[in-house]
């Protein structure tokens, strides 16, 4: 057994041997730490929203139709699949296919954002703002725009990241691991939406 092997046996990985913790690359570890922190941010927003809703005497239920949010959900879930296929293609070295799937993912994100903005404009035209709405409780607008706005910001940032990383990947400046890290972020944005839809939209359907 060589000296390096002895060191490996003597110490836990990641402490003194230069092996990254959990055998995860630095970039991947960084994005996972970001995801954990961001999950806490969104959870805090949703808990605060639940707190306000639960404590309020009356809570508006302004959504008449689920069509728009259903289409948005379908697009975002599908974009996660295309992202997965893009990373898969990148891992086997198929650069053009990887770039194509990444572009398709970014396109999904753009369509999602446009639908989201259209929905916002519809609500705004009905008189809803951050501090006022025709249905009574002004906290509804504040919490709705805060949560969906934060998510929309993440989608927008994700689209920009996908385009930048995708283009740099095709030019050889980034590798498959960079695309994988961007994909992890995109899946997380999708994951957050899975909680936003039922609590912010579906529980507020007018019936």
């Amino acid at each position, binding site marked *: 057994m060589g000296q390096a092997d002895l060191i490996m046996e003597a110490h836990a990985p990641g402490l003194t041997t230069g092996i990254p913790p959990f055998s995860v690359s630095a970039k991947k570890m960084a994005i996972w730490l970001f995801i954990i922190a961001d999950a806490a941010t969104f959870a805090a927003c949703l808990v605060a929203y*639940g707190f306000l809703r639960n404590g309020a005497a009356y809570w508006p239920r302004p959504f008449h139709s*689920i069509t728009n949010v259903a289409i948005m959900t379908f697009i975002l879930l599908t974009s996660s699949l295309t992202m997965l296929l893009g990373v898969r293609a990148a891992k086997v070295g198929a650069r053009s296919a990887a770039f194509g799937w990444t572009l398709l993912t970014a396109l999904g994100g753009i369509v999602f954002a446009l639908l989201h903005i259209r929905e916002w404009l519809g609500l705004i035209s009905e008189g809803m703002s951050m501090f006022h709405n025709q249905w009574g409780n002004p906290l509804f607008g504040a919490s709705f725009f805060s949560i969906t706005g934060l998510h929309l910001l993440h989608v927008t940032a994700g689209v920009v990241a996908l385009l930048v990383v995708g283009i740099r990947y095709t030019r050889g400046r980034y590798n498959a691991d960079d695309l994988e890290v961007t994909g992890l972020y995109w899946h997380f944005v999708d994951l957050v939406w899975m909680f936003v839809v039922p*609590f912010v939209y579906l529980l507020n359907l007018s019936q």
Partner: protein
Amino acid sequence: MVDAPDVQKHEPPARYTDPIRRYLIIYFCILVLAALQFFIAYAHIGATAKFERMLLIAIAEAGLALMFFMHLWAERRGFLVFVIVFTGFVLIAMQYGWTDSYRMELGAPYSQPKQGVLHQ
């Protein structure tokens, strides 16, 4: 100068070479779960029951996405435990506020009732 590869040699081999069929199955499972939430939204059940069912389904969807789309299942067990335990602890610790929201609603035991709430 060529940069040293970021991924160490001992890192497990790329898991993204899973068959596409597996990804499609997971994708359809998540789609079905999402559709189920929409059906529950129109079900004639109480608000609490709706919330509980939607939460359970959302957790199932998130679990599938985490484990298979984000490949957490294929990472080392130590990393999986780190992410789940660390995140889970933070998320559970946030639930302290609920009791206070019920206090606001019911006005008991430490505050005056909110006007109109108890008489609805």
